[in-house]
């Protein structure tokens, strides 16, 4: 199920909320049961068979974590950890990378192995990383093993973050799994976040996608049109993914969970290093903590550090999808980050801010082209058209979309900066002086939020494009 569907909004969410809040707060295990049951329905809605893969993964990690916690020797617990990591990566690898490896082997050796056509279980990349972080943390002694199977299953399956993140670490929600309360300010905050995310997804991402879709199918593009298309995709993926994270964080809050932020205005970055501190933060920090640091990070000399960065970024690319363009995308950013680390950051610091923004944005936009097109040859064609291979500076496509989607583009540009947040807090500051400011600001806010929902539903019903991009991962 996806958040921007009618089944979710009109049936699943109201029913889940109703049952959840009918269970009194003191029966937390009961509430956890409701959430677990709801999450399984949510997960199995489209393809029920993969519930079993997830249940297997839950049991495997639940049991191994308990065994690691009880292990009498370091050797024993290390062995169990290796078994656990191998098991998790094995499941992920089988479902996600088998066909990719078969294709690659065929390509290199000219063999004719037939691919198994394994369908990727939704969200497997996300929940595998969550459970691995839990078991590793147990091994490191950072958290205690969870004895309550319901609470643990609840952590893994919690529907707000189940299929597209953020990757929630067990340590961040451990306390809330065992004790949490419902506060009206937290629920209201959750509603705000959910509605904003819903609007970002339906009104911005889905709509700007049209521009990319229409431009990308052409094999002759002017420089301006190629850039416009790439910029459209750049906005689409940001509003799609960060909108989803907003909805996840918002829903989490409604049920009493505080997830960490996943995005922090990535497109205002002044370097690629900064960009990756602001984009999909839960993934970057996961790789940092569970791959980069254990590999030695920057503690084992400069050469080793460069190697570690390279490993992390090849894996980051591969995590995004079983295809060479994702590997290329990871390597692309790995190389840029290494160059920045070596000397470029120091040089950039001396340059005017405008230049640093332009530098970062150009590299980010090109990065998304590599990400968007799953055939490396076509990536090359598209990027070369961005630099004039089409032989035209402008064409009809560019002017047409600029005229008809100019507003949307402008909203996307402003929407990816801090301006809207600043404007909102400015308005709130003005209102604070008025009598009855609570009521006035409440009504103003309700009008805006319901307005966003009404417009979004009008677009949803009108049946434009809907699936979440991050499903594939």
């Amino acid at each position, binding site marked *: *199920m996806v958040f921007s*569907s*009618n*089944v979710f*909004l*009109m*049936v699943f*969410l*109201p029913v889940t909320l109703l049952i959840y809040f009918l269970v009194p707060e003191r029966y937390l295990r009961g509430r956890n049961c409701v959430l677990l049951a709801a999450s399984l329905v949510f997960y199995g*809605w*489209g*393809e*029920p*068979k993969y519930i079993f893969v997830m249940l297997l993964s839950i049991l495997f990690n639940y049991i191994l974590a308990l065994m690691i916690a009880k292990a009498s020797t370091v050797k024993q617990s290390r062995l169990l950890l290796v078994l656990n990591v191998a098991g998790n990566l094995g499941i992920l690898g089988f479902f996600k990378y088998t066909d990719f490896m078969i294709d690659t082997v065929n390509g290199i050796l000219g063999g004719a192995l037939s691919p198994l056509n394994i369908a990727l279980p939704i969200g497997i990349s996300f929940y595998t990383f969550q459970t691995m972080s839990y078991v590793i943390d147990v091994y490191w002694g950072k958290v205690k093993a969870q004895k309550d199977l319901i609470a643990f299953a609840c952590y893994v399956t919690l529907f707000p973050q189940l299929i597209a993140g953020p990757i929630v670490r067990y340590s961040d929600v451990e306390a809330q799994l065992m004790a949490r309360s419902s506060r*009206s*300010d937290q*629920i*209201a*905050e959750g*509603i*705000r976040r959910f*509605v904003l995310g819903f609007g970002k997804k339906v009104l911005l991402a889905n709509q700007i996608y049209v521009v990319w879709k*229409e431009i990308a*199918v*052409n094999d002759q593009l002017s420089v301006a049109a190629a850039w416009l298309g790439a910029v459209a995709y750049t906005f689409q993926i940001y509003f799609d993914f960060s909108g989803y994270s907003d909805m996840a964080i918002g829903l989490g809050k409604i049920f009493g969970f505080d997830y960490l932020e996943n995005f922090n205005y990535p497109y205002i970055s002044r370097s690629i290093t900064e960009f990756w501190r602001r984009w999909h933060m839960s993934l970057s920090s996961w790789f940092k903590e569970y791959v980069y640091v254990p590999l030695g990070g920057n503690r084992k000399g400069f050469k080793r550090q460069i190697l570690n960065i390279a490993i992390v970024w090849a894996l980051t690319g591969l995590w995004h999808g079983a295809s060479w363009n994702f590997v290329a995308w990871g390597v692309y950013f790995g190389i840029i980050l290494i160059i920045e680390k070596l000397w470029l950051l120091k040089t950039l610091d001396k340059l005017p801010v405008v230049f640093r923004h332009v530098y970062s944005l150009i590299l980010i936009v090109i990065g998304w082209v590599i990400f968007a097109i799953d055939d490396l040859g076509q990536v090359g064609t598209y990027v070369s058209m961005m630099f004039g291979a089409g032989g035209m500076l402008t064409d*009809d*496509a560019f*002017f*047409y979309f600029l*005229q*008809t*989607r*100019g*507003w*949307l583009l402008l909203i996307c540009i402003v929407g990816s900066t801090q301006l809207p947040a600043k404007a909102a807090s400015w308005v709130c500051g003005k209102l604070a002086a008025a009598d009855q400011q*609570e*009521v006035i*600001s*409440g*009504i103003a*806010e*309700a009008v805006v*939020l*319901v307005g966003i*929902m009404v*417009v979004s*539903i*009008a*677009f*949803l*019903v*009108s*049946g434009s494009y809907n699936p979440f991009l991050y499903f594939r991962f």
Partner: protein
Amino acid sequence: MKKRDLIVIISAVAFLCFLSIGTLICPDVDFSENENRYMQGVPVLSVQNLLSGDFSADSEDYLTDQIVFRESWVSGKSKMESALGVRDMNGVYICKDGRLVERITDAEFDWSQYKRNLQQMSMLKQTLEKKDIPFDVMLIPSAASVNEDVLPKNALRFDEEKAFAQAEILLGDSLVDLRSAMCGAEAEEASKMFFRTDHHWTGYGAFIGYREYEKHKGTDAESLTYEGVEPQVLTDEFQGTLYSKVLMSNLGYDTIDTPSSALDAEYMVMTDGEMHGSLYFREYLEKKDKYAVYFGGNYGRVDLSMENAKSDDEILIIKDSFANSFVPYILDEYAHITMVDTRYFREDISALAAEYDRVLVLYGIDNVAEQRMVLASGVAE
């Protein structure tokens, strides 16, 4: 508890309740006239449906189709988009004069399908030439090229020049070229050829097609005028397929008319084996799809037999729905008219064509790229 938070929570709950309870209470719609399709009914819950994923897909369709105020959401969205400068919605251009025109971009136009179909026509032409049966192909220019001047600025559309050039190469003098008569006309004239709210040509557009076809045949058609055929209005409350796609209320209505001679003529019509006394199915004038007043829609094969035709000739028309409003103009010229629609007709067309005195292929040019035609025998690839 802060009042501000409370207001936010209450309004969110109220909105959700409005959506779900409103949809629950509203009676289900079986058939949508505007969308011209049956709406999803209550999904059937069964183990099989659950496991196959059909239940979840049907549930989503059910809620989307039956959502409270469904058409208001759609028309509201169109209005908002239009206000923000969007000029294409659901595959339709909103033109400067308010008319709607189908939007077919170069990427959407299936060039290989188009070429393959032209080759089929060319092979049929060769077969019929050997038998001395006159063969013509009339490709109707798209509404976008006829109304080029009012299209949105820089509007994207397929390269129609190229499409006609390919047709000229493959069909030679068999091509009845309507471009000089239909494209590049004065705004006033051009605006009469296609409906404002539908993808078909109007009675006037079909008249132009008729006049050009007569000229091509070598008939003296200079004296033919639209007034001369005394067009009779069938309805002036037509809102066509393109209207249904955007549901904007400010578009007005179109008029469907037809030559008076056809209204008075005596003939028998057979649609896929069923006999009728008239080609006009007036019951459709009360429905949404009023263009179906011609023949009641499309069939695999339609036969018309005239009592007192001007000649004994029999003509075969291989066609799409554009021919339905064209046939009334030629009704009294042939003793027998057969129309076959390649979408539904599964028999050997080239063998059939050999039995006629004339053969005409009549399509909207963009429709030639839409479906695969098999016109020449024994070459079903």
